[in-house]
């Protein structure tokens, strides 16, 4: 059981079964690790904003760096109009980042390695951005499917491609994060299994790999959170500043 690399992704119920109108909404280990990630990031920000120091301490510096990092990312990709959505992007980035990082701890559960979690985010972003686009520009928002400067003959084909690419946004966004997380953790587990099965004599090579992979996975954890947030910014930019 322990050697099955997919076992780490199994969801099981913790505590009583909660069922609302026939839907199972029980508290699971996934919910627990969501809660742990949320609690950790709330703790960091609590420590970071507890004191208002002119020269910040470590927690304050970290939270201010996070703030500046996200603020710069939003202003670079989506401009000034995206300012009201700063709290959302900020929450999104640090929540995914913390879920990914908590997932890196041994015996923990990676919330973002589940397609349903990333898909919930992606669909919410997709629907939100689409509604926002129609609110900001009315039916002119459909211009997003008609790039300017394209010959009339090619226009139908291009439009169809644009529509498909637009509709596939939630899928690409969610699968990217989920697949990266799942693949990375599976690899780690597989190499970890090799260390055990090859034992003291042959286990050193997979152990080396495992250490290197852990470093890589920490990088991927950060990078994927960043990519998720920046793509959200780009979609937001399309909705706010219509130009093609």
């Amino acid at each position, binding site marked *: 059981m322990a050697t*099955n*690399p*997919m076992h780490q*992704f*199994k*969801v099981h*119920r913790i505590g009583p079964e*909660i069922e609302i109108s026939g*839907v*199972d*909404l*029980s*508290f*699971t280990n*996934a*919910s627990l690790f*969501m*809660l742990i990630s*949320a609690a950790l*990031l*709330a703790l960091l*920000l*609590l420590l*970071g*904003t507890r004191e*208002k120091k*002119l020269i*910040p301490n470590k927690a*304050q510096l970290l*939270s*201010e760096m996070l*703030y*500046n990092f996200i603020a710069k990312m939003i202003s670079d990709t989506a401009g000034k109009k995206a300012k009201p959505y*700063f*709290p*959302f992007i*900020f*929450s999104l980035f640090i*929540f995914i980042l913390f879920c990914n990082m908590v997932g890196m701890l041994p015996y923990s559960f990676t*919330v973002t*390695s*589940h*397609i*349903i*979690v990333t898909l*919930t*985010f992606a669909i919410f972003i997709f629907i939100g951005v689409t509604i926002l686009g129609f609110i900001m520009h009315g039916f002119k928002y459909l211009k997003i499917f008609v790039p300017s400067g394209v010959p009339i003959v090619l226009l139908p084909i291009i439009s169809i491609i644009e529509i498909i690419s637009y509709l596939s946004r939630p899928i690409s966004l969610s699968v990217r994060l*989920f*697949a*990266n997380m*799942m*693949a*990375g953790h*599976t*690899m780690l587990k*597989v190499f970890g299994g090799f260390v055990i099965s090859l034992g003291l004599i042959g286990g050193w090579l997979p152990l080396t790999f495992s250490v290197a992979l852990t470093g890589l996975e920490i990088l991927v954890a950060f990078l994927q959170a960043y990519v998720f947030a920046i793509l959200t910014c780009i979609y937001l930019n399309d909705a706010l500043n219509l130009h093609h």
Partner: protein
Amino acid sequence: MKNFFIFLIFSTSIGGNLGAAEAGMPQLDPKYWASQAFWLIIIFSSIYILMAKIFIPKIKDNLDARENKIRKDLEEAKTFKEEAEKKLKTYQDLIENAKLESKKILSDNRQRLNEDIQTKKVKMQKEIEKEIIAAENEVKKFKSESGKKIINISEDIVSYLLKDIFGEDGNQSSIKATVSEVLKRETEK
């Protein structure tokens, strides 16, 4: 992406060993999808509210406060610098003025001294000239007086000699004439 392909190859190769119920990925088992989505929405919403209402305003306030403080400090530093420059300028002006004044005092004094020396020189010269004239006059006077005295003495000597040789007083007027004649001849010689 590369990782993903490696995983796919790997998972298909070991897929046969897994039980049918747990086959493939637990992610695709819809049993807890609703639960995961439900808890995600609850937890993420609460995080969003926490961020938007508490933490982000706090961080922003702090950053703004720091920026304001830095700006204020910079402004203060600028005013101080300007003030210092002003002070430096007044100080330089002061020194310049003092230099000019001292130069003026120096040249004034020199001029006054020169004038003083000049007037004193002139005065001295006048005095010296006066003294010289007085001395010359005295010499002249003495000269003329001495001539008379010589004549008197000569006359006395002549009359005395006459008396001593001839035993009688000579004629005074003739003696006088003779003496003057002899003196005249002597001075002419």
